[in-house]
């Protein structure tokens, strides 16, 4: 009885329906969802469909559900796509590992050894190469490292290398270019992860009988794992699919899957081959990244964003 009276005295706020209370997050995710659909899922599906078409550049392509394309490309193929894949993965792994080895000390130095005043200028320096177009700065390297470029002529003059020594056209040149172009993608996430570490935690580790090496291995490294993970994602994926460094800095023996996809699409106009190769590349990258995430853990990747 009494509760009825109280209810009657209340203004008529009704409990909102379940839908009203729970739908806003879904409404808000519509934009992101639409974006993913439009620019990710649809291209993915259409890429797969294009790969199943047959035809030629002159008469056009029609969808014939030609699944054989996948076996044709890798079994008894005239063009050694498997080699290109393996070579690209090798470049990716080498670039990623060397990037970590170069970027970690850089990030560590900026995060721990530099006064606050110098942090932003140094980060800017790390990013400075981004101010120049990716292709231009890679081409500048091929100019600098050319046989007539000053690096090799200087080495010749100093008699440090034999006369047939060259840099361009080798795998090392391609890996070097990959590292150069991707280094900021490794430095920044590691820097962010290191910067977030509470300095008192490092003091606590020293207090608990850790020398410098143990502080690093037991505390700093585990706490920056998420940064390394993010850097690996960014660097490895871009490097494996990249056609620019291998075409500008490489030679005959450095042909990568990125170049193969580009050439079959733009030069030979074999759209089905290009689509099939990129689908395979995506699946391979997906499997590698999934395995990597499973092994090294990603639970705090979101902490970085």
């Amino acid at each position, binding site marked *: 009885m009494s509760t009825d009276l109280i209810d009657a005295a209340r203004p008529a706020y009704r409990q909102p329906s379940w839908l009203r209370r729970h739908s806003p997050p879904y409404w808000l995710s519509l934009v992101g969802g639409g974006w993913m659909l439009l620019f990710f899922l649809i291209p993915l599906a259409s890429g797969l469909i294009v790969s199943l078409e047959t035809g030629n550049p002159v008469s056009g392509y029609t969808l014939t559900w030609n699944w054989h394309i996948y076996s044709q490309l890798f079994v008894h193929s005239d063009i050694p796509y498997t080699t290109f894949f393996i070579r690209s993965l090798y470049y990716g792994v080498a670039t990623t590992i060397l990037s970590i080895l170069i970027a970690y000390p850089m990030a560590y130095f900026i995060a721990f050894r530099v006064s606050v005043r110098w942090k932003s200028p140094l980060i800017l320096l790390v990013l400075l190469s981004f101010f120049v177009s990716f292709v231009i700065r890679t081409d500048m390297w091929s100019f600098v490292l050319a046989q007539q470029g000053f690096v090799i002529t200087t080495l010749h003059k100093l008699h440090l290398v034999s006369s047939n020594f060259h840099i361009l056209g080798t795998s090392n040149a391609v890996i070097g270019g990959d590292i150069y172009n991707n280094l900021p993608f490794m430095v920044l996430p590691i820097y962010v992860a290191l910067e977030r570490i*509470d300095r*008192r*935690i490092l*003091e*606590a*580790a*020293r*207090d*608990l*009988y*850790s*020398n410098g090496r*143990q502080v690093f291995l*037991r*505390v700093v490294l*585990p*706490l920056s794992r998420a940064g390394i993970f993010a850097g690996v994602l960014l660097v490895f994926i871009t490097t494996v699919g990249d056609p620019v460094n291998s075409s500008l800095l490489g030679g005959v023996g450095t042909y990568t899957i990125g170049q193969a996809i580009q050439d079959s699409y733009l030069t030979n106009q074999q759209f089905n081959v290009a689509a099939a190769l990129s689908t395979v590349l995506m699946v391979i990258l997906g499997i590698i990244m999934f395995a990597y995430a499973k092994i090294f853990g990603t639970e705090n990747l979101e902490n970085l964003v």
Partner: protein
Amino acid sequence: MTTTNDAAVSTEGTKKAPPAVRLENVTKEFKGMVAVDDLTLELAAGEFFALLGPSGCGKTTTLRMVGGFEQPSSGKIFLGGEDITWTPPYRRDVNTVFQSYALFPHLSVFDNVAFGLRRKGKDKDDIKRLVEEHLEILGLGGFGPRPATQLSGGQQQRVALARALVNQPKVLLLDEPMGALDAKIRKTMQLELKRIQREVGITFLYVTHDQDEAMALGDRIAVMHGGKYEDLGAPQRVYDEPATQFVAEFLGACNLLAVTLDHGTLRLPDGSSVGARPGSMASKLDQIAQVGVRPEKMLLRREGASEVPGPATNTLTATVTTTIYLGATSEYELVTSWGGPLHILAQNISEEDRFVPGDHVIVTWEKDHGFALPSSPNAVAAPITMANSEGET
């Protein structure tokens, strides 16, 4: 009279065993700013020593030098008689409980506590036994597998304590460990900390800016100001007979009465004589400029009341200006016959004992409850600070 010669007490101890910690003329400068100024301190083994002072007084820097996180600009630090001035932190038999706990966020509670033991290369079974034992002592039994940073503030505090105590250091350094806890948990943690310290018998060096906490916990306290300690001794002695005006006011509210020395007698501005403990001023009577009295030590009596004050009692007359009723006690603001302010805290025992603004009263206090102080550079119109009342509301 309580111990004015605490130094003698501790040096007596040094004859048997060296002090747990000894700082010898330690000075620390940061870019021309002196944080710790020629400090000499000794902590007896097994003692709970509280270093008390406002922020910027050098207390945390002192603790960090004992921990090895800062090196003194000059002077020496000894740990159990051994010179550790230049020993890196990881080689010192000292552990720290940090203000923010500084738990390792990537490790479980168990791994946090086991961290130091593992670095020391202890046997696996020993580690397990010691860690579980210490988790048990701190009421964290069963918390071992949990991620350390998912615990509440009070629990993280306990993990930080366990992580330090499990190594059985010669000295445990505590840097405002209660700073981030709320008042209620702080009280229970204080009691528990005292109990644990008695149980483990480790020397504690406790840094705090909270005078109640220092007095509640410390066997001895040192009140620091401007890189030096101004007073050092048992809490009761330091409270009842502080060496300087700063110490008197930092430890609680304090009335300061200007006095002049007249042929060996201290006189109030109205000319009446006043007795006080000479304390640290005993040897330099001519420098006494003020007498301090704690507000709760002064008694109020209606003018014309019949009691005759005994010979051991100081008396003055005053007028009540403000009354603040606080339930168990009342706070009175008064003004003396010569216009000086006075602050008195009185128990509310009966209705008659309460006064209203305008009442003329007689203020009495035992001579032993007053303490002589030198004039201090900032003693002009000495303000009556109520450090306590602020903290408790």
